[in-house]
């Protein structure tokens, strides 16, 4: 009886820990996408930024010996891809969705090509804060190792919400995303605002990638990402373009992804692959439940409704 109890608690704690571990890359990519979409442009290529960030973060961490330099390099790689997206999209008659898909393939392909040499070596990893020291259970302790990047992301979400509300630049990003006409009437350079939003969004997605290779799972290989970059785009819609909601949505998706491994860790092995599909099923269910054919989504930037 008490063993079962410990098992259930163990699953809950493992899911919570997994939510934080698996959710962190979601968090960074979705915050990046949120920023880009608020400016009225969709960057579907963030999966490419993520994988590219994972590779360059791991490589620089290995070459320099500093995991934090790796994170910076990952962000810069993501920012470069973002800049490429922005520059392509501001040409005439260029569709941001098509460019995004092309850059997703380009980013992952480039990362695989450049990252061949870094599959074997071991790079310094990012440090974690052990919050589980009070517990004697190794499961609990492992689950409550919180990475510093997660803490940064958790602070970044409300900060971005504040930025959209209270900063001149934040209002400029939103104005450009809501109404090009209004932005032009205010004398804003629409392409410039979108360029910086896409670059900053790309930077965040790259940082999210470095979490994959430098913390969890914590090594570089070609199967590192399982589409987190793409799912994060859906997650932004689910979060209604609200950064703080992006934080909760990332935790929810992370937790769903951690369900299979958590159940396995307490000995429930049936349905492992079924539980692994939980985030995808969740994506579908949430989209169906929260969408309506009669009205547009609340919070959707005006640039997408035309």
């Amino acid at each position, binding site marked *: 009886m008490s063993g079962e109890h410990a098992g259930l608690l163990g699953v809950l704690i493992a899911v919570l820990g997994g939510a934080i571990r698996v959710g962190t890359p979601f968090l960074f990519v979705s915050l990046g996408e949120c920023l880009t979409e608020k400016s009225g442009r969709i960057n579907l290529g963030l999966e490419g930024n993520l994988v590219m960030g994972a590779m360059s973060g791991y490589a620089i961490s290995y070459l320099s010996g500093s995991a934090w330099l790796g994170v910076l390099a990952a962000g810069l790689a993501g920012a470069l891809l973002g800049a490429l997206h922005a520059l392509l999209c501001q040409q005439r008659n260029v569709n941001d969705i098509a460019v995004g898909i092309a850059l997703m393939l380009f980013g992952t392909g480039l990362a695989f090509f450049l990252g061949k040499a870094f599959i074997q070596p071991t790079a310094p990893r990012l440090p974690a804060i052990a919050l589980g020291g009070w517990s004697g259970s190794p499961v609990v302790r492992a689950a409550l190792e919180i990475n510093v990047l997660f803490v940064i992301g958790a602070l970044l979400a409300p900060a971005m919400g504040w930025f959209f*509300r*209270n*900063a*001149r*630049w934040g*209002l400029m990003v*939103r*104005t450009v995303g*809501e*109404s090009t*006409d*209004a932005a032009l*009437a*205010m*004398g804003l350079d629409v392409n410039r605002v979108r360029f910086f939003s896409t670059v900053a969004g790309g930077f965040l997605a790259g940082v999210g990638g470095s979490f994959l290779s430098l913390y969890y799972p914590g090594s570089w290989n070609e199967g590192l990402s399982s589409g987190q970059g793409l799912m994060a785009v859906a997650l932004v819609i689910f979060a209604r373009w609200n950064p703080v909601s992006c934080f909760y949505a990332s935790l929810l998706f992370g937790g769903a992804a951690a369900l299979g491994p958590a159940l396995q860790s307490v000995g429930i092995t049936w349905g492992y692959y079924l539980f692994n599909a939980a985030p995808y099923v969740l994506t579908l269910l949430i989209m169906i439940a929260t969408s309506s054919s009669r009205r547009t989504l609340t*919070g*959707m*930037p*005006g640039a997408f409704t035309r």
Partner: protein
Amino acid sequence: MSGRPRYALEGVNISKRFGHLRALEGVSLRLRRGSFHALLGENGAGKSTLVKCIMGYHRPSEGQFLIDEQEQSIDNPHEAHRLGIGMVYQHFTLIPNMSVAENLVLARPCLPARIDWRAETRRLREKLDALPFQVPLDAAINSLSAGEKQKVEILKQLTLDCRILILDEPTSVLTPDEADEVLGRIKAMTRETDLSVLIITHKFREVMHYADEVTVLRKGRAAGTTTVAGTTPAALAGMMLGCDPKRMPSTRREVAVREQVLDLERLTVLDDNGEPAVRGLSLSVAGGEIVGIAGVSGNGQRELVQALCGQRDIGAGCMRVQAERFRATREEIRRHHFRCLPEEPLRNACVPGMTIAENLALREFDRAPYARCGGWLNRAAIGARAAALIERFSVSPPVPAMPIGQLSGGNVQRAVLARELSGDVSVLIVANPCFGLDFAAVAEVRERIMSARNQGAAVLLVSEDLEEILELADRLLVMAGGRLVYETTPAAADLTLIGQHMAGH
């Protein structure tokens, strides 16, 4: 008061040409300080061009502007704002996903890097307390009604301390009650403060109720300026419509009239806001007659035509064609030879990116001989028919493979006429067919409409051009407020009476 300028804004001999088109010819306008001045005119009379010159969007070809009796050149909209001129556009320019306060703050010329919302809200509230409109500052724009949005648009200009407010048909999206409230309060402001208002409108009621003075434009010229106290709607209508040189009227032949071709029974149609635009309208048009519906635009004509052409759902009532219920399905349109020539044909009756040939085939492409076994298009047949129609209706340039969006307005109209008038026609719905066309094209289009009637079609002509209706129609109806309020024949027409009914009196 002595020494203060009498006129807030004067335009002296303003002319504006676009290539060969003379949009404005020597128009003078004087806006007295603290007055409510109406600018009245038909579509295309030059009202918008004039205010765009005032706002610095266009540079007048000739003439100058005086602000507070000082000559000023207004080179761009920023310059206009600097001079204290603010404009509220016909369509909303607010950002729907933002709050009222955010929209008002964004309108400020320079924003601080960090916005202190508490201070901004306090500042806005202080300003708003001195103004006659109250709006909830933290409400999102998309949760407001059209009337409230219009108030925010006006407040946006007033919080920027503008002294000359230009309103471009501000009530076109408002209900009558909302319109009365907004105009009444602005009128009160002109009494209590320095504010001078120039309002573009074609609603006589608003002119008579709220304006102090009115300037009428006709075909780019000032047809006159008068005080509202010294005029009547009929006199204004006369100034608006004027007397144009007569052209050769289209030939009208005696034809046997067939009854019950098009019947509308207590038809109600809702506009985009869900308000009734057409209210219980009953009408019947016989084969071999043209029934003309006259009226000032915005009285439900657009919604009526859209309902007839299948572009808008019917709220209540029913339409009958040849005594059968008509719901504007593709099958019914084909069976009854129901044809439609809507206004702005490029937008309402064409796919601009498709070729002339494809657009000419839109009614027939899915039937033999243009479609063969199971939906394969016979491009050769479509092309051959297009070439024949282009020849017959002299569409220029005669290139079937050219996208129709590249044609001039007159040629788009010819192409649509070619599609709609080829073959049998039982019912023809026409809306403002000559809008924006030159003299020769106008004569040709009217001739085609007349010949459709002579061949026995029931023609419903909805037009803002009274002269066009007087020339073409067998019967004339006046539409106001979504209802048919008056019926006469062109032979017995009394312009004064028609004008009064158009104005809703």
